[in-house]
């Protein structure tokens, strides 16, 4: 039996909604098949007010062993570092986060806000938001760069806006069943099993990427979304086209550009007008090239691939 506590800070509840849609395994499977005891969760917990507070205090004192502390949303520090804009059970949420993280065997940050600040931390960041151990790419965050939980791991970051439900439940199962040692984390503390490949990996538009045929409008079945519509699939680490959403699709499969939501900089370019859904260029060359590709190589490859494109690559082959 592993005790799990889930709290929300500066959050929209999107990751909770995502979590409740998990299938492999489902949220119910966590309880019935994998021995997870949900002490409290904002959308599932039965307790209110002082009863919730009592659970939190018992976790901190050790009266209840806290095995997994899950946090969703940013750690709000406003105003002036006090955190009073986000109060919970009689005190600033940031204080609960600090003490519960110190008491937990494992700490798991779910979603962009909890991992690196996400949209609330976009400049000028009026809520003074931070992720648990990062603020965008900067290591540190609310718990500090040197933080490790009782089990010796830093915060396990599962980013996304929201995170895919099965990334969440599969990591929780690994931790709850004593397999946390098998998890290897990347430089941003994301489980490599999910975040080493790219969103582009498994994308049905890869043939259009290869032959440099561009989509020119949302929802088109033909064409790659990277060249014009701002898709970040070639430089975003996620398994969105390997572990499909609702088991059937992904943004790019549906004709919607990847927004890069599993990367620390999300939302990119601070949402400046004209930067969303539009590939940013310098003299016609994308500012952000596919990971590991330089400008010279990109220009050469593109010219050659374009010249070699077969006729079918320029047609809609997904016909009824």
């Amino acid at each position, binding site marked *: 039996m592993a005790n799990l506590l889930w709290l929300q800070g500066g959050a929209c509840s999107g990751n909770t909604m995502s979590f409740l849609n998990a299938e492999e395994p489902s949220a119910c499977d966590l309880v019935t098949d994998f021995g997870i005891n949900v002490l409290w969760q904002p959308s599932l917990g039965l307790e209110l007010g002082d009863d919730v507070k009592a659970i939190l205090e018992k976790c901190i004192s050790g009266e209840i062993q806290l095995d997994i502390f899950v946090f969703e949303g940013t750690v709000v520090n406003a105003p002036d570092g006090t955190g009073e804009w986000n109060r919970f059970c009689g005190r600033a949420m940031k204080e609960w986060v600090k003490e519960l993280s110190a008491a937990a065997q494992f700490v798991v940050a779910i979603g962009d806000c909890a991992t690196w600040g996400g949209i609330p931390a976009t400049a000028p960041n009026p809520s003074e938001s931070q992720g648990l151990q990062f603020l965008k790419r900067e290591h540190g965050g609310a718990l500090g760069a040197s933080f490790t939980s009782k089990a010796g791991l830093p915060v396990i970051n599962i980013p996304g806006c929201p995170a895919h439900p099965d990334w969440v439940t599969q990591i929780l199962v690994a931790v709850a069943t004593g397999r946390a040692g098998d998890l290897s984390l990347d430089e941003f503390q994301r489980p490599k099993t999910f975040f080493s490949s790219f969103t582009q990996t498994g994308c049905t538009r890869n043939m259009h990427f290869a032959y440099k045929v561009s989509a020119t409008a949302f929802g088109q079945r033909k064409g790659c979304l990277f060249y014009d519509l701002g898709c970040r699939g070639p430089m975003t680490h996620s398994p969105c086209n390997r572990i499909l959403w609702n088991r059937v699709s992904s943004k790019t499969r549906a004709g919607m550009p990847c927004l890069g939501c599993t990367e620390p900089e999300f939302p990119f370019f601070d949402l400046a007008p004209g930067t969303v859904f539009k590939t940013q260029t310098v*003299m016609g060359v994308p500012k952000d090239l596919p990971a590991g590709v330089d400008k010279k190589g990109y220009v050469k490859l593109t010219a050659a691939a374009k010249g070699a494109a077969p006729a079918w690559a320029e047609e809609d082959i997904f016909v009824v």
Partner: protein
Amino acid sequence: MSETASAPPVDAAADERLRAEIAARLKAGLETEAWPRAETSEMVNEIVARLQHATPEDLDAKLTIAGVTDHTIEADEIEQPCETCMYYLVHRRFCELPELMIPVEPQWSCRLWRI
């Protein structure tokens, strides 16, 4: 399900007639805004916005605003022919930028070129 914004059904003869018409206008000296090239995304957005406000049937306006030329332009040490542009359909010899949608030749160029 039909596509939301794609090239109209291909009429090769109509493409050829319009391509020849454009070539003739450019050869006759139509002065297009080939410079400055769209160096930044902001410049791209401005030019595209002007194209969106142009009358769709006004071919001269489209060619002028986009800076179409009947020869390749080199900028920032990179040649910018239609044939390497993302909006170019190789087999139809056609520019699929929604605001242009015109038949072209591979060695032509415009300042909205992107790779």
